[in-house]
């Protein structure tokens, strides 16, 4: 049995330690990314995220206590070495990493604007890229199996014109490890991608997932997030709809339990006319679990005839659960349709009684209500095997 001794640090000291590790590693930064970084604007240090002197609004409800651990710098395990879920009827192709320098996806990589983006980009221990050459179902696993290690990883995916693909991202992470993953996906005109983010069963460690995508003319992205259970997970998504007719649909079902945090921060930018977006999320927070949802719709001056929707419904399953939801609209065009709505409430006793009055025992009734509520966000998953996988991967303890 391995015994790991963790020395408590202050947040500031922990962050400084992590920052130092990341910065010291930047000698391997590929040239094209160095140029991106050099052109970037934004805060330079993680201190900008700290409560107190300069509380960052986007991190207001997300504790940074994961930084207390004096992480060692480690490397994530990519793709074929990581375990895959069983998906009946699906023939998955593992995505094989290529040299990042040659990836056409980098042309559209947005400049980093946050300290995390800058640090992961400059200090990653692995840089990888891939092009999805043809239609099909692909798997991408990025795992951090080693305790006490932080693994900053940068990945870029390129989906050429006309390709229709599905990608399952799996991020198994040791309960005492930190995975820092930045993933950029470039969809060329007319490309269609269905993307799933999931994890194996069981409670995983800590993950900061920075996701960005550029969606060109008439291209389409559906992004399904059902990552299961993590001690701490924050998914930051930047979706840039850059061409007319581009579409970005984001769905998620999340279930933080005791001492778990699940944080989703989304910014969808409509940068061209006739673009469409949707954010549809359902969450259940259990006792001692915290769910954070920050969803922003940004419509630029060029984004006339935008259709944008957002909905986050959450249930506080029991006392001691926490949900923080904040929808935001930022609209600079005058001919758009944008709606947003968030609701948070307790489990309705009326629902439970209704099911029990039909003979369904209390625990099964609760499970049915929870699963039905969460699956509202995932009912449009196109592949049956993935819907089944999602249903089993919701992390319900019931």
């Amino acid at each position, binding site marked *: 049995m391995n015994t790991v001794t963790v020395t408590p640090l202050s947040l500031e000291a922990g962050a400084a330690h992590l920052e130092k590790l990341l910065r010291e590693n930047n000698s391997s930064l590929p040239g094209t990314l160095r140029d991106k970084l050099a052109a970037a604007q934004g805060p330079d240090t993680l201190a900008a995220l700290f409560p107190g002197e300069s509380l960052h609004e986007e991190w207001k409800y997300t504790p940074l206590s994961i930084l207390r651990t004096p992480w060692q710098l480690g490397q994530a395990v990519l793709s074929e070495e990581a375990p895959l879920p069983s998906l009946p009827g699906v023939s998955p192709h593992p995505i094989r990493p290529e040299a990042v320098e040659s990836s056409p996806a980098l042309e559209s990589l947005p400049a980093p604007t946050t300290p995390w983006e800058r640090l992961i980009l400059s200090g990653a221990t692995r840089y990888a890229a891939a092009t999805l050459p043809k239609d099909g179902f692909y798997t991408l696993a990025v795992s951090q199996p080693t305790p006490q290690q932080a693994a900053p990883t940068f990945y870029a995916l390129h989906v050429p014109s006309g390709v229709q693909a599905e990608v399952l991202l799996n991020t198994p992470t040791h309960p005492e490890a930190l995975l820092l993953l930045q993933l950029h996906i470039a969809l060329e005109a007319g490309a269609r991608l269905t993307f799933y983010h999931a994890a194996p069963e069981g409670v995983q460690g800590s993950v900061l997932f920075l996701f960005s995508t550029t969606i060109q003319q008439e291209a389409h992205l559906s992004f399904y997030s059902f990552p299961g259970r993590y001690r701490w997970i924050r998914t930051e998504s930047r979706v840039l709809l850059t061409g007319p007719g581009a579409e970005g649909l984001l769905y998620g079902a999340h279930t933080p339990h005791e001492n778990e945090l699940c944080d989703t921060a989304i910014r969808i930018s409509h940068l061209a006319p006739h673009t469409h977006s949707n954010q549809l999320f359902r969450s259940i927070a259990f006792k001692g679990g915290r769910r954070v949802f920050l969803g922003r719709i940004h419509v630029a001056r060029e984004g006339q005839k935008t259709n944008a929707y957002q909905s986050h419904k959450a249930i506080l399953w029991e006392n001691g659960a926490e949900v923080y939801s904040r929808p935001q609209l930022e609209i600079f065009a005058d001919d758009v349709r944008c709606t947003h709505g968030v609701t948070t409430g307790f489990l309705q*006793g009326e*629902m439970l009684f209704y*099911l029990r*009055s039909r003979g369904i025992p209390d625990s*099964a009734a609760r499970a049915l*209500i929870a*699963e*039905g*509520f969460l699956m509202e966000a995932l009912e449009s998953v196109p592949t049956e095997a993935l819907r089944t996988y999602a249903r089993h991967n919701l992390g319900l303890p019931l």
Partner: protein
Amino acid sequence: MLEIRNLHASVEGKPILKGLSLNVRPGEIHAIMGPNGAGKSTLAAVLAGKEGYEVTEGEVLFEGQDLLSLGPEERSHAGVFLAFQYPVEIPGVSMVQFLRAALNAHRAAKGEDPIDTAQLMSLLREKAALLKLDPAFLTRSVNEGFSGGERKRAEIFQMAVLNPRLAILDETDSGLDIDALRIVAEAVMSLHRPDNAFLVITHYHRILQYLTPNFVHILADGRIVRTGGPELALALEEKGYEPFLSQVV
């Protein structure tokens, strides 16, 4: 089958039922009528086991068993069914999922294996046809987006599927147009057998034209103040409650 003896029940400390007694035998249909606030829906809720209703006195025996000691699901397994006045929505749970879970819970309580899919779908389609419900309705989430009439029909559809010994219909006729009322009432009557019984809570005589109750009870201020045959419902329709309540001491 059902014996209610001197039942007293309160909601948030306020007494609602004040000594209600009633006997229902197999094969009978009882109608319970009464003014607003008389305790009709409280009676239904107490019999089905809803939380928040405190029984302060009296007893309820269902086939000799103490009904009040059972949880709502156990009452259902025993054969009690409540058709809700206001059925709730269960988002994301299809009627098929819901009724599969309910039927399998009933079967498990009897020590039987779960129902297979073909048998389940055949049963659901047959009962949906009885209520003249489009089969597509089976794939919809429970009560979500249903009109008032659809919700009431869905309640009787569930009753047909679960085949209870005692069905309590809590204002099932309210919100139904004339055609829907006839469909629902005829479906209910088609389910009536010598070994089951119905307790029909209603404000109106019109549903009783189809159901033909053996007994009509007037419930007022938490207890039954008068019992008669079907003619009592007709008299209530003509004269209202006042003449009957004024005779109560």
